[in-house]
């Protein structure tokens, strides 16, 4: 398995390199290559490659219960306003289903109860917002890698995309990670926080934990997980809502 992940790492980084070349060559009406998308993206490009090289599959630091933040603040969207989501909350998410599809062998849907019945992992980790603050909390959930093995990735899958229930204006939130992070042991689909069911403010019923990256990668209110070969078909093509709307970098390890 380790060898497989290693080969996947390699393929993923090659694929990511290819896709960033494709991005800079893109000439859509909403995308103009500018100084900041070329020269000033060099830092992130380097950070991604160098941190993958020296970080490998290293685990993010874990903390003890006594080191946890007394209050773990929320941010981003904290109460999705769609009527579909509201309906789910009234049923305490009993009608919620996680759809897993795209480049997978057997697309599937899972209820919250089914996810809770799967092998779980708990970890006390530090959440780092791109703004600069940090909070330490305990997360419990299913390893994303475990779920992806259940559905089986097709060989051409390179990224895992998260489609969410929360919206900015009319655009539903979305994010993506490469297969290195997707199969990282600490990458969780978390349904519990600090030993309580995940609150709406923190992304109920299911959110991503991708511990070696900044907060905006940790998609909340996940409705659907999609395996893809390239990110160009997702939203504006840069792999995430803030990447498309706010010029934030897709790789957020620094």
């Amino acid at each position, binding site marked *: 398995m380790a060898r497989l992940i290693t080969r996947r790492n390699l393929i993923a980084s090659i694929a990511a390199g290819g896709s960033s070349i494709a991005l800079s060559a893109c000439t859509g009406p909403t995308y103009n290559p500018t100084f*900041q998308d070329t*020269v*000033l*993206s*060099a*830092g*992130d490009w*380097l*950070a991604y490659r160098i*941190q993958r090289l*020296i*970080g*490998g599959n*290293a*685990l*993010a*630091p874990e*903390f003890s219960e006594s*080191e946890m*933040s*007394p*209050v*773990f*603040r929320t941010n981003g969207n904290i109460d999705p306003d769609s009527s579909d989501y509201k309906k789910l909350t009234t049923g305490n998410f009993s009608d919620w289903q996680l759809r897993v599809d795209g480049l997978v062998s057997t697309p599937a849907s899972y209820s919250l109860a089914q996810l809770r019945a799967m092998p779980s992992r708990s970890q006390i980790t*530090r959440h*780092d*917002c*791109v*703004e*600069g*603050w*940090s*909070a*330490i909390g305990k997360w419990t959930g299913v390893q994303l890698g475990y779920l992806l093995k259940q559905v089986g990735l097709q060989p051409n899958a390179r990224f895992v995309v998260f489609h969410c229930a929360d919206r900015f204006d009319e655009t539903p939130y979305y994010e993506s990670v490469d297969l290195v992070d997707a199969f990282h042991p600490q990458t969780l689909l978390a349904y519990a926080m600090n030993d309580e069911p995940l609150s709406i403010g923190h992304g109920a019923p299911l959110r991503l934990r991708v*511990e*070696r*990256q*900044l907060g905006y990668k940790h998609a909340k209110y996940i409705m659907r997980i999609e395996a893809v070969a390239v990110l160009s078909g997702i939203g504006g093509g840069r792999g995430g809502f*803030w990447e498309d709307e*706010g*010029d*934030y*970098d897709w790789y957020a*390890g*620094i």
Partner: protein
Amino acid sequence: MAVSDQEVTNVNTAAAIVYRHKLSTRIWHWLNAVVILIMLMSGLMIFNAHPRLYWGQYGANFDHAWLQIGSAGGDGFLRIGDLSIRTTGFLGAWQGPDDETVYTAFPGWLTIPSTYDLALSRRWHLTFAWLFMAALVVYWIWSLANRHIRQDLLPEKRELSARHILDDIKNHTLLRFPRGEEAKRYNTLQKFAYLGVVFVLIPLMILTGLTMSPAMDAAWPWLLHVFGGRQSARSIHFICAMLIVLFFFVHILMVVFVGAINEIRSMITGWYHLPPKERD
């Protein structure tokens, strides 16, 4: 080649010329003049995204911030511990280009970009950080090889005596600077200042910067142990940045005091006109 090995030209004239700054020093100096300015100004914009500093592993709005820049009732303030200073017009609340009041920590004329944009300031900061880091490493190696560190920067034993250092402090306070032969070399306080920047402040900036990266904390967990947590690293990062700003102002003052044209010319060409020795 070292200053002491150089032929002093025109020994008989009042203003002897010596080769004072090696190519490595000159390149690094001017590169840093640009890169540090970009790092500082983009860093201040990143700070604007969360203008609070903490000690420890975590720190967010509900936790105690030892330093905060903000606004209350239309006035800007800087708070350090329990001490709060009104900073309206500069920090926390300042007049924008259209004379509107802007409530961000550092004003637009100090930040890159000048209007609030965390994503763009991060791109400036995290791209130029690589150049900053690479340049330091190259400079270190080059300065070891050409003996700049040993010959010019490291103080000699006699310079480390309390008496010598006190004399140097006294001379600086009286704005009395070395002339003639003595001016060929950096004076002791000057050496301390340069050593502090080259081997303490800039390395600390880089290491605390890396400690703020969640991926680096996974790869190199010792970073967190060294600095006492990500938020401590962020505080140290800010403090070191302010110390580099302090160094910058003292540096500029000294250049002006001892002769700006001669100093700047020598940092471009390498050649320095020794200030003539005063007649006793």
